[in-house]
């Protein structure tokens, strides 16, 4: 029962999402489905990092009337992983956009979405 904390639930969910996403990226044939699996992997990774920063009974690192201004290091959760994940999500959408346009370009040249049709190194 002592294993049933919010942090462990977040970690287990994130790990499961990462495994599912990795499995999908390795086994799918369709390029678009591979990209979907990548986004799922991304979501799981972000969830793991945020869950690692959580400390039981503490509040979000934003000062307002309910927190006061003293002894903040004993009230707040870790802010650094949150800042990292914030940047990671924004970069994730950029990378997804690049992958998708690349897939679109490949479809326009070959009229196929199967990853096995793109084995040549020069096209």
């Amino acid at each position, binding site marked *: 029962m002592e294993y049933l904390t919010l942090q462990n639930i977040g970690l287990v969910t994130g790990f499961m999402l990462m495994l599912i996403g990795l499995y999908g990226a390795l086994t799918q044939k369709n390029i678009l489905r591979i990209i979907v699996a990548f986004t799922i992997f991304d979501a799981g990774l972000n969830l793991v990092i945020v869950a690692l920063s959580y400390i039981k009974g503490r*509040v*979000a690192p*934003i000062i*307002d009337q*309910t927190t006061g201004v003293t002894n903040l290091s004993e009230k707040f959760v870790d802010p650094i992983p949150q800042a990292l994940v914030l940047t990671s999500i924004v970069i994730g959408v950029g990378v997804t956009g690049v992958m998708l346009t690349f897939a679109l370009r490949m479809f326009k040249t070959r009229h196929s979405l199967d990853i096995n049709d793109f084995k040549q190194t020069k096209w």
Partner: protein
Amino acid sequence: MVEIILYIAGGLILLGMLTALWRFVKGPSSADRIMAFDAMTVTSIALIALIAFFNNRIIYLDVALVYGLLSFTGVIVIARFLEKGL
């Protein structure tokens, strides 16, 4: 007393979300799935407001505000995709 009523409300909202999820899994056409997605986003606004109340932080309501203003664009994009209007 107030908290117990709100717990029951939260349970009902979660149950509603799961019911909408059933339509998402089953939905015969894409439009049904999109509708279930829309219902889940609208429902999650209420869930976020309840979480904000239990944590006693007004700043959490900003997240609900984002969902309230932006969730409809996703539905519009998919609807226009279906009718080939993109």
